């Protein structure tokens, strides 16, 4: 069985183990969840060695048949399988999921009241996220999205702060809609591919109805150009795009994200900000660019304009945020706007920049949420106005926060910069005027981040904050790991760059 199969199965086993074990000490559940997380990470890292970086084909694949729908399409059986594998785009994303997931598990307070449930849902969310990024089968993919949806719903619902129930419901409804849109669009794509195949072969009995993603990617653009009417293709794409917009919290469908972040606890925030908000962009790359490149080109101007709107809207909204968590949420929206711009550009720099941005934004958001969470444990508040002078009592945490903030505003030698410049190179190549406006975001990100930093770590220290403790030993691990990765990608981008480059080239070849 392929290695990628176990990326998903290990956390699932951990989750089920936690579920079936009777009432035990919290530490037991913690150990199980952490072991699952560590094992997953080890396997993913092993995956880097097993992965052949010279080609973008799906590797480390594992598949077991799940069920069969007999005679679904012109007498052919549809075999639905649990099918996993990684290519150049999936592997770094899976790695980020494993890292952020493990650190999110670590960030759960040891004395959590309902520890069993927390670890269970977290492990389940990790399972779902892994499956989203490694699925090679549409059915598995959609199931995984649903899994993420309700696991995160429960995490927010059960472990948030005042107002978390409403926030969780908001999350559920929004993301539920996006899943519906994905389901419609993706099944539509599978149907279009089969129809196109049938038309191309003039013999319906040869038609194959498949949910296999690589096969679909290989056959679909032909089907679209030969068989599907332009209106139908556009409709499919727009439905998919609607799902992406909601899933990714793009303006104007973004209001769930700040609300959720404001009310969720630290570990959930790390997971949401780090990984859950990256699935939509993944769908856009995998299914939008990968299967409907013509439509991406056709709607390119609209995508680019929305990208810039997101960059600026997110930045301005972050500027006026009064709470760190809302600020981080909006800065994430701003970053994702850049992803949209890069995708719209539809050239190697743009796509590569978008992929880098997924990783960069994921790492930085998780880091920011971890650090602000650690501060909140001490100061009990994250209202920017009421903080100040934290450098005095917690110099190390403040230092890490500074690195994270600088990464977030795109300082060179952090991952933020390398993503930003590639996305903008792509953007300027295709849409110079729109990108020109978008470049304003580079200044704005400095404005809101440094404004928040000035009010948080600089300035006179309030009386109540003088005696606060700096980072404890176990808090160093997440901070150091995430900071290290941010700097690694920034200093030597080729570490993931060559994989993303292959993926971007492969995606660009699809359109012909």
């Amino acid at each position, binding site marked *: 069985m392929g290695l990628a199969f176990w990326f998903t199965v290990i956390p699932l086993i951990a989750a089920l183990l936690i579920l079936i074990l009777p009432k035990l000490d919290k530490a037991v559940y913690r150990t199980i969840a952490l072991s699952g997380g560590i094992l997953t990470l080890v396997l993913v890292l092993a995956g880097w060695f097993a992965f052949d970086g010279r080609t973008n084909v799906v590797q480390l694949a594992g598949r077991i048949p799940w069920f069969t729908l007999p005679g679904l399409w012109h007498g052919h059986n549809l075999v639905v399988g649990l099918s996993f594998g990684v290519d150049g785009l999936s592997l770094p994303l899976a790695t980020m999921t494993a890292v952020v997931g493990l650190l999110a598990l670590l960030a759960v307070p040891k004395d959590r009241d309902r520890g069993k449930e927390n670890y269970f849902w977290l492990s389940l969310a990790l399972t779902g996220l892994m499956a989203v990024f490694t699925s090679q089968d549409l059915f598995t993919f959609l199931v995984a999205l649903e899994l993420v949806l309700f696991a995160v719903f429960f995490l927010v619902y059960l472990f948030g702060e005042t107002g978390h129930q409403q926030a969780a419901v*908001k999350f559920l*409804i929004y993301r539920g809609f996006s899943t519906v849109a994905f389901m419609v669009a993706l099944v539509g794509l599978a149907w279009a591919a089969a129809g196109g195949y049938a038309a191309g072969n003039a013999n319906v009995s040869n038609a194959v109805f498949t949910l296999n993603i690589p096969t679909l990617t290989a056959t679909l653009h032909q089907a679209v150009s030969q068989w599907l009417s332009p209106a139908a293709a556009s409709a499919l794409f727009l439905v998919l795009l609607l799902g992406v917009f909601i899933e990714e919290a793009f303006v*104007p469908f973004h*209001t769930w994200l700040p609300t959720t972040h404001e009310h969720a606890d630290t570990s959930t925030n790390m997971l949401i900000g780090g990984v859950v908000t990256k699935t939509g962009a993944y769908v856009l790359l995998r299914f939008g660019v990968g299967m409907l490149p013509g439509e991406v080109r056709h709607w390119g101007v609209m995508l680019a304009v929305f990208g810039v709107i997101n960059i600026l*809207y997110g930045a*301005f*909204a972050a*500027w*006026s*945020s009064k709470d760190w968590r809302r600020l981080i949420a909006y800065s994430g929206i701003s970053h994702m706007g850049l992803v949209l711009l890069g995708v719209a550009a539809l*050239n*190697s*720099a743009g796509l*590569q920049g978008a992929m880098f941005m997924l990783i960069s934004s994921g790492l930085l958001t998780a880091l920011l949420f971890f650090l602000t969470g650690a501060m909140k444990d001490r100061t009990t508040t994250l209202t920017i106005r009421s903080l100040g*002078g934290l*450098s*005095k009592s917690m*110099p190390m945490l403040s230092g890490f926060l500074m690195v994270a903030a*600088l990464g977030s505003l795109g*300082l*060179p*030698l952090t991952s933020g*910069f*390398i993503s930003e*410049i*590639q996305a*903008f*190179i792509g953007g*300027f*190549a295709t849409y*110079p005027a729109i990108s*020109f406006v978008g*470049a*304003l975001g*580079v*200044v*704005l990100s*400095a*404005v809101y981040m*440094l*404004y928040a*930093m*000035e009010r948080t*770590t*600089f*300035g*006179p*220290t309030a009386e109540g904050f003088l005696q606060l403790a700096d980072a404890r030993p176990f808090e160093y691990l997440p901070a150091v790991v995430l900071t290290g990765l941010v700097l690694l990608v920034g200093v*030597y*981008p*080729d570490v993931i*760059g*060559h994989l993303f*480059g292959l993926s*971007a*080239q492969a995606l660009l070849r699809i359109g012909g």
Partner: protein
Amino acid sequence: MVEYAWLAPVLPLVGYVFLLALGRRAAEGLVAGVSVILTFLSFLVSLAVFTALGAHPDVTGTYTMRWLTLGAHSIDVGFQVTHLNALMLVVVSAVSTLVFLFSKGYMHKDERFPVFYQYLNLFVFSMMALVVSPNLLQLYIFWEMVGLCSYLLIGFWYFKPEAALAAKKSFIVTRLGDVGLFIGIILLFLSSGSFDYSTVFQAATTGHLGLSWITPADLTTLTGILVFVGAAGKSAQFPLHVWLPDAMEGPTPVSALIHAATMVAAGVYLVARMYPLFVASGTALTVVAWVGGITALLGALIALTQRDIKRVIAYSTISQLGYMMMGLGVGAYAYGMFHLFTHAFFKALLFLAAGSVIHAVDTQDLFEMGGLGKKMRITQWTFLFGALSLSGVFPWAGFWSKDSIINATLQSGHMTLFWIAEIAAFCTAFYIFRVYFLTFHGKPRDESKMAHAHEGSWVMTVPLIILAVMAFIAGLFNTGLNNFGLQRYLMADSPTGLIGKVYPDNVPLMIISVTVALVGIGLAALMYWKPVISAEKLARNLSGLYRLSFNKFYLDEIYYGVVVWTGKLIAGIVDFFDRYILDLIVRMLGRLGYMGGVGLKYTQTGQVQTYSVIAFFGIMILLAIAMFHVGGVF
């Protein structure tokens, strides 16, 4: 030797890593000692590279490794040594070494002494890496890194709210310029297919710099101006100069190193490095010249009336950077760099001397000082050397370089700029001697603070003396005495004369310039040394002008009122829209669902028989449809 030039930036990096490993509690002597020794070694390397290049002008080379692949393009990092780079390496490492030594005394007993040296080492590394960059992307990377170090060092005393604000302001204002550079670099990359200087210049000079939406000539001008916007942000050129005076909130050695000698000169360096591009577009060069001229005058005018010793020197820096830009803008490439070279020494000297004063009296207000000359002989004399050099009095260093620039404006036919330069020169002489007389002569205006004033230890005085010597002799590197060695050295970068012109000495002009400077000094002496003319009276008579100068032409207020306020307004509107319009719609939709549920719940009577009746009629209707519409069921 040239192939070892990478050692120059790497040595401070080693220092940074070493200090980082030592931690925040390391001993002051160890920290400072290691830093000074490593920087000094870096200086020796730079000097060796500089001389090696002088002996064999053709060995300039590029050494690179792959960093990132972007489609078909490979992006490299590495280092390149040209004559310009070699000169910058020497200037940066020399001033750094002296400032490192000085800081040992100045920052003594500061709680975060090791952190201060960490930041400084990181800065020196970044600055040198910037200088030796073989391509625009690497330049931009370290361009931002030096900006970061500047930010961290301005905000070094983080507990001071003014320092925090100043740090933020410096980063954001320079970032505003950096966006221009960012876009410029991207456009250059897209049009020439490479970040490498040589490729870009090749394309620019042969007119091959083209994109589909713009003509090659326009693109050259556009990218030139965008690059200059970046340079203007870093080098505090009008209208992006507002951050530099505020940056004086940082410790004084930082002001000397970063905000006088090196980082702020990076903008000038950038324009010089990109000179073929500017030459290819005459318009861009004209913009550089005029912005430089305006900045030179504006900085000098504001400096006339400031009360804070460091702010006067800061505005002086702005003004002098304007001179350099003007020099480059009128085509005098070598003179612009020559002024950068001399300015680095005499301005660092002025700042360090001011630091020595501040260290002694613990105030920065000129009107609380006075009579310090008796207690601080060395500081007084070295400051005087710096002031004479800045004023452009023969034969101090500033005289040679500034006069070359003024000469170039005249010879190249920019008469307006020539007059601007002369007026600014007059103001320069006046304001710096105003500072000198107010600080070192007359009676102490605040006895309590003067009482304890004394000279610092040798670590502080030795750098002052060395810099004073340099401020005196640095100008001689480009005179008839050595057959104009510096300009010949610099022009070797492009033997074809692509990088501007040089002009023969103009003795009548020299006499005029020195006279202007002496008149300025004389006026300052009459107002502040032997008060023949009352400064207050003059200020009252010219109250409009005085207030304009004292309030820095209200540029801060204009910025706040226009840029910041607009931004905040938009942010507020976005916030309002987000909360009360967009989220309202979302909540209304949610409400709609809820209302629907509330409405429909009344059908839930709990009466089984009612349900059954409805089900019965439902089945009847379905059967009826089946029978009459679809047909064939019965």
